[in-house]
């Protein structure tokens, strides 16, 4: 029985792999391309199956053969006399072809014990054709500076609204897909309002948009949204993930820290539409700019958001190194879209980054004044040196975006250089106490040369190198992250990995066009956002026909509009905003709303200011999700369950899961229950009829009018509930006892409770938490 089960398991496993393979670009049913491309057809296979032993890592290289460089691949093999791995034009003479298509397990590549799996027939055919066509190597696409290509030709030109659409449509047409109609006005307004401001549209905004029949109505709405200061909050959300922002130090005792003025700066910077190159320059090296002002210095808090240990008995240097590693990771993953951390211990196995390259990059961050350990939790301070002190006067002048009722001086952790240069060594296997040889600061040569005539060997030089127009990554990576936030997936799906192992762009020319256009227009972020949301691609209806689900389940080719569950913070914002509870204060110290009891207490060492959760009251209960206090060792559960980053390290992409715990939150979280009660109470105060109440509640939450069928369901539920309350089967008093917001005793309790429960149900609709 057991073995039968195992066989069944195995069969199913295989089936799923086969099905999966069919979804791949390398499915065996696919025809071979006219010209086989190294970058798009060959290198992904080489990288996945071969580079681990025949790639850039010199220490792990087998048989002295590397297949990532033409010279080596064409050269006579050292261990098989008279043979060549690749003979351009002659697949039958190429050892590589013989090896990958062999049936002899001792001869076959990849070796069975590598567990990498063999190549399928289609992959082998690709290699044969590529070699036949001359086995031409190309530089990795992401390391070549982007160029604007001419707009592709499309058949259905009247569909296009701006340049983006030419690229999207031409790809669709090549795949035999047709775009959807434009979404209906209500849904389109919800989508764009959520995407730009992170809040649902107000009733007024909905009515205005519905009534505005002019051709420029949508653009008008977009312009209005871009002017809203909620835009900065929405944009900051993603950047806080990149910057692993939190309100505590993490590790062991996990005490409180004051890093929120940096968060306020990010919101401010987006609202002021600081150009992206300036935004980056200040964050990388604001403190080193000539006559740097406090705003520029504050921006460097970006590199100080990571965890700091306060555990007694640590070895300070071990942690100091850990902090520099984290900075290096955040820079490379968040800004460069690369995973270089492999090269911390050894030469990168897939990408052309040596261990020396890694520590040269690391060296830029290795000269800060910070130390590995300032002391244990008993002497914990709100910030760790180097510090920026922000006085009340500063907050009235240059730093007037920092919102604090308290007038005492604030301390924030920022970057600051040592006077004498700290030497950086390549660390053997990445271990802090095993320095080998010294390196000087330099940026990744495989990406772009770090010309020391042009760039100083410090963070200022790194910043200039990063935002240089010839840098192939900075603009592409940011444009892609933004695309991901608006369209649900990046043009490069692996938004944190543009390297050899990353996904290839679905629309490479579009990505390049957007990146170049972005730089040509002064790295103007609002302009880029507007470009995306004005496109016809973005404005499509999200209806997914069976055929489209079949052909393109992930909507990679955008033949329908994006439809996704809201991110964690925005679910909270939607609930608070639609019920009228939301307090629209921007910035300030993070707040502690309702949270299940005992979570902090169960997990704490008992030391420090955060050993117990002291819930806030009043306005602080109703702030946007971005202001919810993040204690790293116990991040807010309602956020994490909805896939928010736990802020442990730099993250550029959140998962989008769908779990029963999420259902439990929407059903039972006091925030949702209180919002339902308060909205019900407010509607009752208007003294209209139930149709009015249900319609208005539905519009506020779902952002469109209910149809007849929906109205029927709402009414029948409302009536049943009302009967139950009237007949005392359910207690209205108990039901209404939710949250701290003041109760209105003048309204009829039974109707209020029945309406409250109907509103709860509306909050639980899939569409409520979907944009």
């Amino acid at each position, binding site marked *: 029985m057991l073995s039968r089960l195992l066989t069944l398991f195995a069969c199913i496993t295989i089936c799923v792999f086969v099905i*999966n393979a069919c979804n791949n670009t390398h499915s065996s049913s696919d025809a071979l391309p006219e010209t086989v491309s190294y970058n798009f057809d060959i290198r992904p296979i080489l990288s996945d199956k071969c580079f681990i032993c025949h790639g850039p890592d010199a220490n792990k290289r087998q048989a002295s053969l590397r297949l990532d460089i033409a010279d080596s691949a064409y050269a006579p093999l050292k261990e098989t006399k008279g043979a060549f791995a690749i003979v351009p034009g002659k697949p039958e003479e190429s050892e590589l072809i013989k090896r990958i298509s062999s049936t002899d397990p001792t001869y076959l590549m990849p070796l069975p014990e590598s567990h990498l799996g063999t190549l399928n027939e289609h992959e082998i055919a690709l290699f044969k054709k590529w070699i036949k066509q001359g086995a031409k190597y190309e530089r990795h696409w992401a390391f070549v500076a982007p160029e604007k290509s001419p707009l592709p030709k499309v058949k259905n030109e009247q569909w296009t609204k701006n340049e983006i659409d030419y690229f999207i449509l031409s790809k669709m047409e090549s795949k035999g897909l047709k775009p959807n109609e434009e979404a209906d006005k209500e849904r389109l307004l919800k989508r764009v309002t959520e995407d730009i401001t992170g809040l649902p549209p107000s009733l007024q905004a909905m009515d205005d948009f519905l009534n505005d029949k002019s051709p420029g109505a949508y653009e008008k709405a977009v312009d209005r949204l871009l002017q809203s200061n909620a835009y900065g909050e929405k944009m900051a959300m993603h950047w806080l993930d990149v910057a692993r922002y939190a309100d505590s130090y993490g590790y062991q005792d996990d005490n409180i820290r004051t890093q929120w003025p940096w968060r306020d700066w990010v919101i401010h910077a987006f609202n002021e539409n600081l150009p992206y190159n300036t935004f980056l320059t200040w964050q990388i090296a604001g403190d080193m700019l000539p006559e740097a002002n406090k705003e520029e210095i504050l921006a460097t808090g970006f590199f100080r958001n990571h965890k700091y240990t306060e*555990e007694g008995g640590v*070895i300070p240097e071990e942690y100091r190194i850990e902090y520099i590693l984290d900075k290096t990771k955040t820079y490379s993953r968040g800004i460069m879209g690369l995973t270089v951390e492999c090269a911390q211990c050894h030469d990168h196995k897939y990408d052309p980054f040596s261990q020396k390259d890694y520590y040269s990059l690391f060296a830029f961050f290795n000269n800060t004044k910070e130390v590995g350990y300032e002391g244990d939790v008993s002497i914990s301070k709100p910030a760790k040196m180097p510090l920026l002190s922000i006085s009340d006067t500063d907050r009235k002048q240059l730093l007037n975006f920092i919102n604090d009722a308290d007038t005492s001086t604030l301390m924030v952790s920022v970057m600051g250089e040592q006077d004498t240069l700290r030497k950086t060594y390549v660390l053997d296997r990445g271990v802090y106490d095993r320095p080998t040889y010294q390196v000087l600061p330099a940026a990744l040569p495989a990406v772009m040369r770090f010309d020391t005539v042009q760039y100083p060997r410090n963070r200022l030089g790194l910043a200039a190198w990063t935002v240089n127009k010839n840098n192939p990554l900075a603009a592409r990576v940011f444009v892609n992250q933004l695309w991901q936030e608006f369209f649900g997936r990046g043009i490069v799906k692996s938004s944190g990995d543009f390297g050899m192992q*990353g996904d290839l762009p679905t629309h490479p020319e579009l990505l390049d066009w957007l990146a170049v256009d972005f730089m040509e227009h002064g790295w103007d972020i609002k302009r880029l956002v507007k470009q995306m949301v004005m496109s016809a691609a973005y404005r499509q209806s999200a209806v997914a026909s069976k055929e489209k689900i079949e052909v393109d389940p992930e909507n990679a080719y955008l033949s329908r509009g994006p439809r996704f569950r809201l991110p964690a913070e925005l679910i909270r914002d939607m609930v608070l905003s639609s019920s009228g509870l939301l307090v629209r204060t921007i910035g300030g110290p993070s707040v502690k709303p309702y949270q299940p009891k005992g979570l902090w207490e169960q997990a704490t060492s008992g030391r420090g200011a955060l050993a117990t959760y002291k819930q806030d009251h009043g306005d602080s209960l109703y702030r946007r999700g971005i202001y919810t206090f993040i204690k790293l060792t116990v991040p807010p559960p309602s956020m994490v369950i909805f896939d928010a980053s736990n802020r442990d390290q730099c993250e550029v992409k959140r998962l989008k*899961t*769908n779990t029963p715990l*999420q*259902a439990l939150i929407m059903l039972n979280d006091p925030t949702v229950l209180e919002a339902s009660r308060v909205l019900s109470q407010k509607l009752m105060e208007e003294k209209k009829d139930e149709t009015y109440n249900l319609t208005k509640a539905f519009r506020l939450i779902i952002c469109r009018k209910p149809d007849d069928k929906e109205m029927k369901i709402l009414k029948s539920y409302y009536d049943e509930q009302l009967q139950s309350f009237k007949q005392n089967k359910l207690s209205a008093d108990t039901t209404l006892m939710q949250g701290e917001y003041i109760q209105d005793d003048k309204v009829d309790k039974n109707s209020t409770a029945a309406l409250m429960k109907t509103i*709860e149900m509306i909050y639980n609709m899939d569409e409520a938490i979907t944009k």
Partner: protein
Amino acid sequence: MEKEILEHRLGMNRRRFLSRLSLGIGSVALGSLLIPDLFSKNDEEAAITGLAQFAPKAKRIIYLFQNGAPSQLDLFDYKPLLQKMHGEDLPASIRMGQRLTGMTADQKKFPLAGTYFQFNQYGQAKAWISELLPYTAGVVDDLCIVKSLYTEAINHDPALTFFQTGAQVGNRPSMGAWLSYGLGSENKNLPAFCVLLSKGKGNGQGVYSKLWSNGFLDSIHQGVQFSSGDSPVLYLNNPDGMNKTDRRLMLDKLAELNDASYKEFGDPEINTRIQQYEMAYRMQTAVPEITDMSREPESIIKLYGPDCLVPGTFAANCLLARKLSENGVRFVQLYHQGWDAHGNLPNEIKGQCKDVDQSSAALITDLKQRGLLDETLVIWGGEFGRTNYCQGLLTRDNYGRDHHPRCFTVWMAGGGIKPGVYGETDEFGYNIAENPVHVHDFHATILALMGIDHEKLTFRHLGRRYRLTDVAGTVVKDIMA
């Protein structure tokens, strides 16, 4: 690419949900919720890369983590020489320049501290066990006591993280998440990975949710923390004033609304959401049933000790762990805090042992009498060991011990484990003398017992394949039955 497999699998499930949905909303069987849903297990969980390369010996794991690091020298690793040399300095030839924590690095002397407690030999293996653990001694013939574990970290946070995720830093999936990913759940009404916390009176070090994190795996694999309060799982309880019938009524109407939305948009996510609400509803019944101790017979209460009726104690968690495991929860992770005895060790360790000894042994006995020990792997131990020399002032009856990563003891029992004593330390209890077991080896062995080749349970994330055992790990076949 694994990400795509995962996404694809979710898609498959979602499509399956569709076909189930055609049976009608609310028609999902709501009968006996605690019967493991073995029928639908195979097809849903089959897409995993590392699935059963060989017949599994264990199906489930209960990990009794002793957080803060219990002193092996006062519990299992008996060293008469230390008592003889009590107060003498640790010879440099033994220490060999091993790095020390910041807490004892400045100590001028490292006076050896012999244990204050009596040791006796028990069972067929004649294993030495301290008087602090009489109940554990009583089940010794079921235990494999591994005295030669070692780790790389010397501070709690990285050491714990290393034990739970296979890496000292970084947001990696925890062991339970890997197993949930690799093997799925045996019960559709309960999470595959559950976490139970308790605290002793000893010096504590806290735990952190990253220890049961799903890391880069799908969040369905995240450990679900049970709490001892009114609501055993976060947000589980309906609000006051709402009963079960009422909830059902609301969910039926809600499903109607959502179904209309599905008909309009064709987005499979909508149907998944409907099903997740059903699962949530089933959890609302299943979890309280399982956490209800009131129906446990007298004999069981006696076995685990009276504390098992006090929610939030280690004893109560042991009993709950048995019930969860019995109902198909793949991985039950307990943490008991308070073992970090830098000072006043003899006193603190007494309390800690009293908290855990009886119920740990009871769990073994209980599983055995239910015929479940063969398929359940039970693990007991901390994140590193403690030094043979004293931290702080040494007297005859009082001492403290600092962190010691070079050797420490963990015991394992049940599913596929060969009882006995494995590994040996030198006569100072400072270095390993034979059969060292690295944390990666320990992980590899656990996976092997679960029928998984640790090199094949991989997940591709940001350009590389990750494993619980990173790039190392050797299965310790000697401790496998």
